[in-house]
């Protein structure tokens, strides 16, 4: 029921696993993501985004936009580079792989 209702609202609730976004986001923290953020705008450097892993699309990642890498492609990075797999490993991320922008922590 909630899932059905939720599908109508462009918001997503996510729980952070892992330490690549430390200290901005700590393991276990929850975030509300605005899935409409990039309907009429493009991702900007420093946005924290949820994205589909380019190598395994069912798997969701949370990273920070580093910079644009050409048209409709972005480089993403973890805040804690020693514990992050990001664009250094999987290259730029396409626009349609970005699920939304982190709006708030709760």
């Amino acid at each position, binding site marked *: 029921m909630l899932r059905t209702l939720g599908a109508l609202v462009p918001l997503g609730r996510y729980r952070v696993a*892992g*330490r690549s976004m430390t200290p901005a986001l700590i393991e276990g923290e929850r975030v509300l993501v605005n899935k409409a953020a990039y309907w009429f705008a493009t991702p900007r450097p420093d946005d924290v985004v949820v994205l589909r892993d380019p190598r395994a699309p069912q798997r*969701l990642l949370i990273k920070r936009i580093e910079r644009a890498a050409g048209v409709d492609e972005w480089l993403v990075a973890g805040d804690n580079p020693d514990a992050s*797999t990001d664009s250094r490993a999987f290259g730029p991320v396409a626009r349609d792989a970005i699920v939304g922008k982190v709006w708030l922590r709760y």
Partner: protein
Amino acid sequence: MKALLRLIDRISPPETVHAHCDIPCGIYDPHLAQIGALTCIRMNQLINDLGDSPGPGDKKKNDAWHSSLGRYITVKEEHAELVKREVRIIWGDFFKPEHLEKSPDLHATVWNIMKGGSKVRQNIDLAAAEELLAGVQKFAEAFWAAKGVKTQRVPSQQAVGGELVVPA
């Protein structure tokens, strides 16, 4: 708002987003830090053994002396920094709060290593390098204790002398 979101989470759990390193290799070892500290000791020994500068009279000898001194200093700089880096990674990524019960002075030990590493870089000071090694040995023992592994101190078997902390 936040309370409401938490309430919704109870009914329907949130999806997981990964902020992982794909290489959660879990491989940590304080060996490299100890080798770095031993290298700093060795460089101080070599600098001390170099004796006085031969002076500008004999250009070839003088250049050779300065070249050696420069190389020893460079290696000392690099290895003191290596010690700091290796210790920082293990301290930040491996150690968990519960490990502090076994090693309550861990943070102080790391702090001393950070300060000691800088001191080794700043000066030609054999005693400072030996203190750095002592700090890293203590850190290595705390690391293995956190993993429940017994350790022993064994001679390095290198020209520098000194001891290494290794799993027993």
